[in-house]
């Protein structure tokens, strides 16, 4: 079988012998234009000198990175000490994105399970329902969320009228509001990959597990989760990564105290306070962090595949 496939692919290669390079051109063009070029530009900008009112001066400088990690006093001549402001923003972002991912998983897994175990046309109806809100622009959805949860918004009014609470709960401008916003923004990215994995899960495995004396809990932790793990990990990455760089939810729902990396970067490229090299440097630091996580994950997968 394998030999057959190998044979087939060699014959294909010989059919297109010598054309390989040209056939690859379109993909290289796309990758080059949409990936390498912008990221390369960012990388270069992060090592340039800032021009006031935005823009850059073409002069090599490490100032952007220096500004991120070190505090040299008001006039820049004091001995450098570690600058915690931006590192703290990073930590907060990781925490917020992590919490949002955790709750997406907590809600997304049972949701995906529920949809995948429906039969007949119900399945597609449920899938469609999940995606409906996402036909609306993210900005508008985030503003609606703000409207929903504000002190005099429908949520509080409803709870008040039910008598569950005696005065409005203050949600807006808290870190919880940001987590809620991120959760809401990216939930389908959790549901869909898990759905795809569960869809392929063979329920005979659960029966075998029960036959071999496994409790429901053991069946879940030893059989189901390990088998659908690729979907879970894909979902977590798809929620965590954009949450980490998000700026709409923290800006609109979190207020000044809940500043995240995304907002920090956005600020550098907008208006007069802008500092392009610094924004580029923050982006590069964020990107390298994400790459480290993804590489680690890929390594892990390769190791498991080899086992």
């Amino acid at each position, binding site marked *: 079988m394998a030999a057959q496939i190998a044979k087939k692919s060699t014959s294909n290669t010989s059919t297109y012998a010598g054309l390989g390079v040209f056939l690859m051109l379109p993909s290289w063009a796309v990758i080059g234009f949409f990936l390498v070029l912008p990221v390369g530009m960012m990388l270069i900008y992060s090592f340039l000198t800032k021009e006031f009112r935005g823009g850059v001066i073409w002069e090599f400088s490490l100032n952007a990175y220096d500004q991120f990690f070190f505090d040299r006093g008001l006039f820049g001549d004091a001995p450098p000490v570690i600058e915690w402001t931006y590192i703290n923003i990073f930590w907060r972002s990781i925490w917020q994105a992590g919490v949002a991912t955790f709750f997406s998983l907590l809600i997304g897994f049972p949701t995906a399970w529920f949809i995948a175990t429906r039969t007949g046309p119900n399945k597609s109806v449920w899938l469609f329902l999940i995606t409906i809100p996402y036909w609306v622009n993210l900005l508008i959805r985030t503003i609606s969320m703000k409207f929903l949860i504000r002190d005099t918004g429908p949520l509080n009014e409803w709870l008040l009228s039910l008598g569950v609470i005696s005065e409005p709960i203050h949600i807006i401008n808290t870190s919880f509001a940001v987590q809620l916003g991120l959760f809401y923004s990216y939930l389908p990215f959790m549901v869909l990959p898990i759905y795809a994995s569960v869809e392929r899960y063979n329920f*005979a495995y659960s029966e075998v*597990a*029960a*036959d*071999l004396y*496994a*409790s429901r809990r*053991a069946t879940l932790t030893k059989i189901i989760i*390990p088998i659908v793990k690729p979907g879970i990990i894909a979902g977590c990455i798809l929620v965590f990564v954009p949450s980490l760089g998000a700026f709409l939810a923290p800006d609109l729902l979190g207020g000044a105290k809940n500043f995240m990396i995304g907002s920090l970067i956005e600020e550098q490229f907008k208006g007069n306070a802008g500092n392009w090299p610094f924004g580029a440097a923050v982006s590069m630091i964020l990107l390298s962090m994400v790459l480290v996580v993804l590489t680690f994950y890929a390594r892990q997968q390769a190791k498991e595949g080899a086992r």
Partner: protein
Amino acid sequence: MSEIAVDILNMTKRYGSFVALRDVCLSIKDNEFFTLLGPSGCGKTTLLRTIAGFEAISEGAIKLYGEDIADLPPNKRPVNTVFQQYALFPHMNVRANVIFGLQRLGQDETTARARVDEVLDMVQLMEFADRLPAQLSGGQQQRVALARALAPKPKVLLLDEPLSALDLKLRQSVRQELQQIQQTTGITFVFVTHDQEEALTMSDRIAVIADGQVQQVGSARDIYEAPQNRFVADFIGETNLIDVAVSSVSGGYATCVLPGGDVQFTCPAAAGAVVGHGHLSVRPERVSLVKPQDGLLRGVTTRQVYLGTDMSVDVRLEGGKIITLRLQNSEETHIPEIGDPVGLNFETGTARLLED
């Protein structure tokens, strides 16, 4: 030996309004190789699943060594299953698959490991212990499934057509292996198949099932030689069913008259046979060819088929009914040409009157 392992009492299983199993009564003995045999869709898998606990029964009772288990979930029943499609856990290697049940039972690590080695040795898979299921052949996967189900030493092992995915040669060798394992372990086997040869060669006793009902229970010989009704006679091996008039039935024997003839004779009768009208079952190999005037029946040869060691010959009786007979393919046997008038004879003791 006489203890009852699985006792199924008047059990009915419905899916909505569809009756998958109707009023099933079966007593499977301890240490027995018991086979459920029947055509596709007759309810064999459903019956097995009710014993394993995957399907709740609608009526009746199921007892395991005297204890009513109808309300126990699958993981509380000391019964293991070898599934038709094996369903090996794809993320675990062979050893992990086999040890899974032992760990769930809370066995300590050393005992469990020793037991895994023991069963892997039994199914000759020691050298594959560290492979993933995807790295095994179909036959090897089948043996892992068997080892996994045997490891916890179940009181009863259920096997749902475990050989159907294997090729003919392998199937034959695995049959013997399975029988041997059943004998050495002393575990009660409930084996499902739709292959009559498999059933006849392996089982201590067989239950023939059709349309969700048990047709007959007995040893291979009982079922082949003394079928209870038309379905069993027809399903197990080949048979000729001849309409006869029955003049008396008593003590397991009946007196019948063959069609178009005045010859009256006595033959064994099934329990449900009644006076009036009946079906006589005669196996093709029990019918012999004679001169037309000497036969119990007379007809014309219409077909002959070469089967290697045997010849199959069809004879059309005067009333239009076709009788098939089997002749040994040797120098001495006279094979009639198509169109030859022939007489057919059989020992009346080898024929059997069935319930209508």
